[in-house]
């Protein structure tokens, strides 16, 4: 698993539950030293171990943790860069939904080894969409839950009012239902092209 994903999990756990909690989780998963390097590769099983340990220690379902990670990735100052990169995908939330298919390719553009599962959007009409998340080799976790959290936070970012529901997993393909109630419900967070550097 790419270090960027592992590092994101680590930063989420550190920032949310404190360094001691993280170090205990890392110990349980045999990660020594207790730190992921964003630019190195790690065995897939290690990511799975970290999530299992986190779920145990925090007494939460793994799906819930994954969803929180997705939200964290967009809303926490630590990962402001990722939020900016995601906002490049579309001028409004509907645009953003339509660009989800590009998400894995965009990720690869940023970091060629970053291999995300295929994502596809189905427009069901009447502002109802389904997002499917396909299998990614031997991924040790359900990426769909991360995407659900990420979508929730992005809707917030755009100021859109949406209903989101994870419909489970069939043949390794997860489905998320998205119902767009109001595209411009609130004022979104500001975003300026070319603000970096």
């Amino acid at each position, binding site marked *: 698993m790419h270090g960027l994903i592992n590092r994101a999990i680590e930063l989420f756990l550190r920032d949310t539950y404190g360094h001691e909690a993280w170090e205990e989780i890392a110990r349980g998963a045999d990660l020594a030293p207790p730190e992921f390097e964003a*630019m190195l590769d790690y065995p897939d099983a290690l990511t799975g171990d970290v999530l299992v340990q986190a779920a145990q220690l925090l007494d939460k379902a793994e799906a819930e943790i994954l969803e929180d990670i997705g939200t964290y990735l967009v809303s926490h100052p630590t990962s402001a*860069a990722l939020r900016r*990169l995601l906002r*490049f995908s579309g001028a409004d939330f509907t645009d953003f939904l339509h660009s989800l298919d590009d998400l894995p390719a*965009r990720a690869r553009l*940023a970091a060629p080894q970053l291999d995300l599962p295929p994502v596809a959007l189905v427009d069901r009409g009447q502002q109802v969409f389904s997002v499917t998340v396909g299998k990614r080799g031997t991924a040790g976790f359900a990426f769909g839950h991360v995407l659900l959290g990420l979508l929730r936070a992005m809707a917030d970012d755009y100021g859109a009012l949406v209903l989101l529901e994870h419909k489970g997993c069939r043949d390794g393909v997860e489905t998320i239902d998205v119902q767009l109630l109001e595209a411009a419900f609130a004022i979104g967070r500001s975003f*300026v*092209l*070319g603000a970096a*550097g």
Partner: protein
Amino acid sequence: MRPGAIASLGALLDVLCPMHLIVDAMGRITHAGPTARKVLNTKGLIGCDFLDLFEVRRPRLEPGVPGLRAAAGRRLHCVLRGPVETELKGVAVPLPEDRALGPPGGVIVDLSFGIGVMDAVGRHDLRSADFAVTDLAVEMLYLVEAKAVVTDAWQKLNQRLQGAKAVAEQEAHTDTLTGLGNRRALEPAIRRLTESEEAFTLMHLDLDFFKSVNDTLGHAAGDHVLRRVAQILREEIRKGDTVIRVGGDEFVLILVGCTSEEELSRISGRLIERLEEPVAFNGEVARISGSIGTTRSGTYATPRLAVMMDDADLALYAAKQAGRGCHKAFAPALRKAVESRPGDAVTPV
């Protein structure tokens, strides 16, 4: 002219290429795309002379609109005149002769920021809606940001690795008992000096009676004495000098700068004096001394570590022979003396 012809052409072009300008045969701007209007931000833009606003630097054109028409389809390197010169890429296309899109003789000029898009976005407060849907400018901005994020991550990783490498190297060159440099530190230290052609003295110090401290008082006492010796050597050298523990009770000191024979004798004498200070350990007293052989880089045409170590060894050997606890400087005569009396070894003490 059909009424509204220019307006409908403009409306079409506004979507397809929002940074275009329509220029009539006299060179006056008759229409500007929405992004062009935003970037030019000039009152009374319509009616302005295109070539007053822009300079076409390459290719070299005939003056006026006929020049632009003649360069139809070619890549134009333009500069937007003003306090900050903005470079733009552009292409000119003559208006069709059939008057369908307005009076002939004019041109349509489409512009783009090219590689300067990053600066332009900030300067003109551009949004994604300011670019044509098919324009890759936003993708390019995305790439620039993604590259910045990833480069930053690599840089941090490299810094951490660099720090870890420095620590590992330091540890590899350090004697854990005394904290002095070890044998591995010797060569790079000498290489640095020979490369910078700096004069230096190589001093080979061998402790006397250390073996008996080890044998009678034990290794813990021996270690204590070695640490004490290291401390004395550190105290006695000058800034820039180097002390290396090359073996059990052997040390090499590298003294930088031009040192005279007299001064070397004085330094060595003081070192030996201090080494002979009794060392208390667990109620016992350890007494040692030291023999020193020196050789100076200035006496060689090309100072080489192996040769200098050999010579310092010979001088040390001579000091041992002279009764220990003293210093001898290398002289070529020492080599001859050794060669003529082989097998005359000094027993270790």
